[in-house]
């Protein structure tokens, strides 16, 4: 799994690539919580996520809840079919904020 971050003003666009599973999700959790600690607003690009399991979903949920507590936005963009399938199975497709493009997610950056 690869994680990279690009700055878009106040937003931090986090690109995830590959499988997000028990082995790799701690890296995702640490990365997202670190950005939130710095007051950044994560926009998580899931277009290149080939697989995600419950531990990966848990990392996203924890970051989402941390963002809410801090009054920061948190959104998912370009969610791959594999990731959307698990979000739907977890009934989280109505919880997260989704955008089709990074540009749409970073309006006002």
């Amino acid at each position, binding site marked *: 799994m690869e994680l990279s971050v690009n700055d878009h003003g106040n937003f931090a666009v986090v690109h995830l690539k590959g499988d997000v599973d028990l082995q790799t999700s701690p890296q995702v959790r640490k990365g997202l919580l670190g950005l939130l600690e710095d007051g950044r607003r994560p926009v998580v690009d899931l277009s290149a996520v080939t697989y995600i399991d*419950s531990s990966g979903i848990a990392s996203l949920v924890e970051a989402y809840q941390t963002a809410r507590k801090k009054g920061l936005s948190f959104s998912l963009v370009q969610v791959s079919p594999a990731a959307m399938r698990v979000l739907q199975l977890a009934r989280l497709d109505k919880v997260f904020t989704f955008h089709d493009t990074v540009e749409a997610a970073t309006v006002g950056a």
Partner: protein
Amino acid sequence: MIPPVPPRTTSGHLLWRGRVAARAANLADIRRAVAGALEGLPAGPDWRHDLVLAVDEACQNIVRHAYGGKETGDIVIEMAWKDDTVIVTLVDFADPVDPHCLVIRDPAEVRPGGLGLHLIREVTDRAEFLSPPAGAGNLLRLIKRFDREGG
């Protein structure tokens, strides 16, 4: 002492049987093996993805909870195809788990963690703990039927 490999725990056409160390680092290999075993079956990509997910989540529970992250034991995974179902059994050598103590998270409750069993239940037709073979700790059996549309 390494526990002996248990006898077959499924009936039907054997698709794959493997013994893997219960480590997070091995989950990707397990997923690849499970996906490979499902090639050629009359099932669509979502059906295959879901069964891979169920096996992965079951292995994850064994790594995290049955062995408690100690990485000291193995998982024996067996997959068989019988009639309109695929049957997967997962045998570990950890201390027996009381199935009644397993909590399935209400998905309406938004919080990290506890989703694994919910996902397994969502994507399989049956998930049940059975009596393990001699020398083993737990045996989880997953059953997934092919959809009428072919998966």
